[in-house]
């Protein structure tokens, strides 16, 4: 199961990793035994206390957000989620534009990131010789260590002009008949936000997909190859279907990242609380509206409404992350390395 069992155990004794049943308890002198147990008892409970503290932090995040947004929840009810008007001046708050913005930008980002990620994961796992794999996977991991604000900076000064002069015109001439690619193109848009999100999500989806592909048993591959499949046929017929659940998990994990991403999106999306079909139009996401307006919210209901947006965001990400984890665990086991994810 875990790596602990691989370690050589003394005299071949299989220590029960399930509980601490070390021979300490069988020390003969009862006086010593009692004192030893006291130390163990205190240490164990101290550690448990800190561990519980972590659980409490998570619980209190939910609680604090719920209490803090209670005024807004009472005022607007469920209408908050379907109201499309966000107007602080007239004290009207509906979060639909932000929910829409979050979902659309994340979905578009995945549309770009997922094929690239799966391709890269396959390359790293199946094609790359060792001397290529190590540096390339290091570089892909580097993408994950770049802070969001630097992506945003790069987005503002490089990606936006590029999207305005090349990507936008190219899309409107080729796919301009679709309503998504019409209207003025300022560069600050949902499309640009999704592009930068895609770059940010790629390392996460790639690394988990890689782990999942690696977890596919060799027998699967060998069976396909023995039947005369080419390498690609082997991957398509034996490896990818086997790891499908895990790969879907990886994609949902990427979705969780994209949904919660704040700074880079805030800097390139334009921050306008509108729902428009055109992807060239500026928009806003749940995270970006909080980042943008929270420090300037002037009255209680405004703050409460923003906190409620945060609560919705929290609930969605927790749900998405839990789902992803379960899916990945079913394929690659709970020890899957998802550090930093």
């Amino acid at each position, binding site marked *: 199961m875990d790596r602990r069992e691989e370690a050589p155990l003394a005299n071949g004794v299989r220590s029960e990793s399930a509980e601490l049943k070390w021979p300490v308890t069988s020390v003969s002198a009862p006086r010593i035994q009692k004192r030893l147990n006291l130390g163990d008892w205190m240490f164990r409970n101290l550690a448990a206390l800190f561990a519980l503290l972590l659980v409490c932090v998570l619980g209190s995040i939910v609680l604090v957000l719920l209490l803090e947004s209670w005024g807004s929840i009472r005022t607007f009810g469920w209408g908050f989620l379907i109201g499309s008007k966000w107007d602080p001046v007239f004290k009207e708050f509906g979060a639909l534009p932000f929910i829409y913005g979050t979902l659309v930008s994340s979905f578009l980002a995945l549309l770009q990131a997922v094929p690239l990620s799966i391709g890269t994961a396959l390359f790293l796992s199946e094609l790359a010789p060792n001397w290529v794999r190590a540096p390339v996977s290091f570089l892909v991991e580097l993408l994950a260590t770049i802070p969001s*604000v630097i992506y945003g900076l790069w987005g503002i000064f490089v990606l936006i002009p590029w999207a305005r002069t090349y990507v936008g015109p190219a899309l409107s001439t080729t796919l301009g008949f679709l309503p998504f690619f019409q209207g003025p193109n300022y560069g600050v848009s949902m499309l640009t936000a999704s592009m930068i999100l895609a770059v940010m999500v790629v390392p996460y989806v790639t690394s988990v997909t890689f782990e999942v592909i690696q977890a596919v048993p060799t027998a699967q591959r060998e069976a396909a190859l023995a039947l005369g499949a080419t390498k690609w046929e082997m991957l398509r017929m034996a490896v990818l279907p086997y790891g499908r659940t895990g790969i879907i998990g990886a994609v949902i994990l990427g979705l969780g990242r994209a949904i919660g991403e704040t700074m880079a999106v805030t800097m390139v999306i334009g921050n306008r609380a509108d729902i428009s079909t055109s992807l060239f139009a500026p928009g806003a996401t749940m995270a970006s509206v909080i980042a943008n307006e929270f*420090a300037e919210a002037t009255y209680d209901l405004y703050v409460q409404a923003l906190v409620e947006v945060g609560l919705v965001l929290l609930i969605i990400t*927790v749900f998405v992350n839990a789902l992803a984890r379960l899916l990945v665990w079913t394929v690659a086991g709970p020890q899957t390395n998802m550090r930093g994810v």
Partner: protein
Amino acid sequence: MNANYHRRRIVNVLAQGGMVACTVAVLVPLVLIFSYLLLKGFGSLNLAFFTHLPKPVGEPGGGMANAIVGTIILIALASVVGLPIGVATGVYLAEYGHGRLGWIVRFSADVLNGVPSIVIGIYAYTLLVLPMKGFSAYAGGCALAVIMLPIVARTTEEMLKLVPNSLREGALALGVPAWRTTLLVVIRTARAGIITGIMLAVARIAGETAPLLFTAFGSQFWHQGLSQPIASLPVQIYTYAISPFDDWHRQAWAGALVLLTLIFLTSLSVRLLTRGRVHTAR
């Protein structure tokens, strides 16, 4: 038959070419980001950047010295709060975490890791900024500590689990109590690994902007005590990047270069440390 085989081989080559193309496409943005950072950042770096305060709008020059110091203070604060809890949680998970509570803690840590950092910002704002009636370094540090917690806890757990059981059993056989075994043998053996986890967490929080926007808030001056707003590199980069002034844009690039260098140095030393650990473990 032969034609079919030919077609299959062509598809195979095309698919493999596609994988290579995907990998190249993934690496292109990385190269672009780096080259722009170096190109625009280096030109704006000078001694004043590291030693001077920001100048008011319109006056050229000045630096981000206060933001660099602020980031270091915030990371230190976050570590003071987050590390003991994180490491202790990791110890609990590795040594006692096989029951139901262990499962709950592990799951909570993973969920907490997925909570958007902006939400953690709201949390810290409500718990610390509102009662203290003002933005403060404390609030920023605590927000970062919450982000650190799950990373430190989970890596500590992983690293402690790598320690061979024979070491634990050897210590116990010599009559060392279980808790001292954990402290003196297990943790000491896994020390390099635990430090790795800590540095990973530091690298992660060093670049966090969203939770600082309305907790530490930022300032244009040297830090005025921990209960006052404090500047930090990421927030400063953000403020400068969205401003309309060319001079501030230049400084934002320089700041980004400095921040990324700091983060990379941290992750690089993590790599070297991990390599050392793997080496000695075998």
